[in-house]
């Protein structure tokens, strides 16, 4: 089972906060990989809020290819943070040439484009780079988006973080998602490492998604180029959220209604039962069976957590105004935010969605039985 930890804080934090939380949850886990998603950035990246940031791993050849490709598109590097670890990597971690985080300036001819168009083009650049690099493994691209940094690597999370020197002061964020294992259900592939990202939305998941194949087929047949990859069965959680949010225009309160809809007899008693039943029918291929706990970050930097319809996975949220964290185990939360009222800790159950908005004042809870806000 993956270890998951997410934190949102008014003051920028080092990713090491999350890595240490993962480390205390290490007992009983294999510690075979690490994935990080940082947003609402602090440190040096605070100055480049609107500019797209490319995150990935490149061979020396890959860097040259990246430069050629980006220059052709008229992207200019504004700032970069490259790790070239010289010493031997920790056990199980491959030796890489370059870990790259680069801030780019938009091409001149993108000026005046609509936000939707810019976001689409950013996604396409990421996909094309990924495709270019897949041929010879020279590039692995995790994100290309403003105010977002991602890092993924095989190996023990703490050992990898120390090896890469993730405690450097330039690298800080107010919202961090972290995950501590490589995938187990399909072949090992760095693209299978959580969190997954698409157009400002990131999620990570605990557990196996038994409904993966029909969901993947449904998403891939939506004719949206971003619905691709699927080296992990958990990637569909990110894309379902994206589809729901961007294509259907529904808010996070509907996420549970799509992946774990109420049963038919329950819908009979719901105030919006008729509409929800139709939604359930139309989105039938997106229903999951779990066991899954999904944590994620929305484009507005809110953090959320939901459980499958049987609540078969652990997940807790706690904190105090200004800082809150989600953790797959209590000890991770205790390490990250020891000074909190533990009586206010909350473990969402099968009907609930919890949300911490960017203001970080309280744990918001929704229940699937609640009236639907957008229908009122």
């Amino acid at each position, binding site marked *: 089972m993956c270890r998951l930890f997410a934190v949102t804080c008014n003051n920028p934090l080092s990713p090491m906060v999350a890595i240490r939380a993962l480390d205390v949850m290490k007992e009983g886990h294999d510690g075979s990989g690490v994935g990080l998603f940082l947003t609402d950035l602090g440190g040096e990246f605070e100055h480049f809020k609107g500019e797209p940031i490319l995150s990935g791993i490149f061979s020396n050849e890959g860097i040259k290819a990246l430069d050629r490709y980006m220059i052709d598109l008229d992207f200019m590097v504004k700032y970069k943070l490259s790790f070239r670890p010289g010493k031997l990597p920790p056990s199980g971690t491959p030796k890489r040439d370059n870990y790259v985080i680069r801030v780019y300036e938009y091409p001149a001819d993108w000026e005046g484009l609509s936000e939707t168009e810019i976001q689409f083009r950013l996604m396409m650049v990421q996909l094309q780079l990924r495709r270019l690099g897949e041929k010879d493994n020279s590039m692995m691209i995790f994100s290309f988006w403003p105010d977002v940094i991602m890092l993924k690597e095989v190996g023990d999370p703490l050992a990898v973080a120390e090896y890469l020197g993730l405690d450097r002061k330039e690298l800080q964020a107010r919202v961090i998602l972290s995950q501590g294992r490589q995938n187990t259900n399909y072949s090992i592939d760095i693209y299978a490492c959580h969190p997954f990202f698409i157009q400002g939305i990131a999620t990570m998941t605990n557990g196996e998604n038994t409904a993966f*194949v029909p969901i993947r087929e449904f998403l891939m047949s939506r004719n949206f180029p971003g619905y691709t990859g699927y080296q992990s069965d958990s990637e569909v959680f990110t894309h379902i959220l994206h589809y729901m949010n961007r294509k259907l225009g529904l808010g996070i309160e509907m996420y549970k209604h799509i992946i774990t809809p109420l049963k*038919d007899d329950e819908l009979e008693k719901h105030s919006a039962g008729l*509409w929800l039943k139709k939604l359930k029918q139309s*989105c*039938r*291929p997106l229903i999951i069976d*779990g066991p899954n706990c999904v944590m994620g970050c929305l484009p507005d930097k809110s953090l959320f957590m939901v459980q499958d319809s049987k609540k078969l996975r652990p997940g807790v949220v706690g904190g105090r105004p200004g800082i809150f964290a989600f953790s797959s185990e209590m000890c991770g939360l205790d390490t990250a935010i020891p000074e909190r009222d533990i009586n206010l800790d909350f473990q969402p159950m099968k009907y609930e969605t919890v949300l911490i908005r960017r203001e970080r004042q309280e744990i918001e809870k929704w229940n699937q039985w609640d009236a639907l806000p957008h229908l009122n």
Partner: protein
Amino acid sequence: MESMGCITPSKLSIKDLPWQILWNKEKCTLCGQCTSVCPVQAIELGVHRKRSVQVTPGLAEKPSNVFEIYHGIRQRTEPSYACVGCGMCTLVCPNNAIVPMHGDEPDKLRYHRNAGGEPRRRGGRRNSPDSVLDKIKFVRISMLTDPALDAGRHEFELRTLLGRILPPEEMIKAGRENGWMPPVREIYPLIIGSMSFGALSPNMWEGLQMGVSYLNEEMGMPVRICTGEGGCPPRLLKSRFLKYVILQIASGYFGWDEIIHALPHMKEDPCAIEIKYGQGAKPGDGGLLMWYKVNKLIAAIRGVPQGVSLPSPPTHQTKYSIEEAVAKMIQSMSMAWGFRVPVYPKISATSTSLAVLNNLTRNPYAAGLAIDGEDGGTGAAYNVSMDHMGHPIASNLRDAYLNLVKVGKQNEIPLFAGGGIGKNGNLAANAAALIMLGASGVQTGKYIMQAAAGCLGSETDRCNICNIGLCPKGITSQDPRLDRRLDPEKVARRIVDVFTGFDTELKKIVAPLGRSTSLPIGMADALGIADAHAAERLKIKYVL
């Protein structure tokens, strides 16, 4: 002058027949029940003369002959009286003195079943016990990666949808604008396939309907049954139970006069309308109710004269193109019930299935597609159609599903598969395999007849005389003397047993795969088969 004992080309011995009657003189009580129950009069009272040579040891007395007469059974060998192997003689024999046995080599009767130039017609199914569906295994079991679900403890929602389902974008738009949404029924994924009133006896039909009503009203299982082409008794049309019934319209339009006239009196809408364009047992051929079965009741319900054969044309004669036949007919039927009832076509599996499906994807009123594979059963058809025409269901259904995936409409047009599901008794396993290959649900008829009414037919040409109204179990007969052998109450009880048993088995399949909250339609990653070509064709795992 012809000699008295001439041997004609069609003169057969018992050995040449497919079934030989073994009779035990010692056990036989000469009660005569076997000869009276035999539906085809294959056996008759035999008066046998027997000579015994009596030889006394020694030379004093000369050997002598004694001629005795004994009574027993004689098996007739004329082709029209050949034993069909139903085994009713064994069933009624108080002493187990008689049993039909299948010959040890292919029979010679098959070469002579065209007397008068009329090829063999029969009921039943394709005479081939092979089943690809039986070979499919469920290989993706959740264990250590994640806990498997508990078929006995967890809650399951194994329902399916029948009806055109709007894509999410359009559904939200229609909801916002108060637009029309196509009718969708939430039903149990195992449907009792179309067997007409006429093909089945009144007792069988009543038993099925009672069983279905009980399942719905007492067991909470939304099971649906299709009428087949033969109309529907007016009392049922005007009852609240109509909502459990799928009315079928086919190329003979039998019974539709009654149905149209009953429209204003209907308390409930039917579950759906199935437009039959073809059936798996005899693709390209129309329905057939032979004259033996067209009695007064059947004639009244179908709106035809008594005692005439009722062949439906192979196609809907008033339609000249796929647009006419599919699009317009669906629209007309939808209109008849105010667009409140799903209307879908049923076709026989064929290499042209995709053309029909493509047409349906462009028709906003098409509520689904039922595809019937070559192993589908029938009440009457030419033997050649049954044994040699048609397409297996597995690859046809899989192609149709993957075609829908390609155009992104896999959730919009539900596919229902039929033909050979449970042909060897593995109903739940076959149904689950088809669902994971992409079917939204399955239709079955033969299994229901076998399990709920004790049909004796088999894929090795046993019985299969549904066409001539002589069903020895009273299932497909219209003769009251035969029908009364079947108690509708007991059929209903067996239907309930079949569905509750099926439900448990289906849970036992999907729970270990980690599925419980929705039917695993298209979950082909769970399937494997030890046949590389089949695996490649069906796009499932090859396992050894």
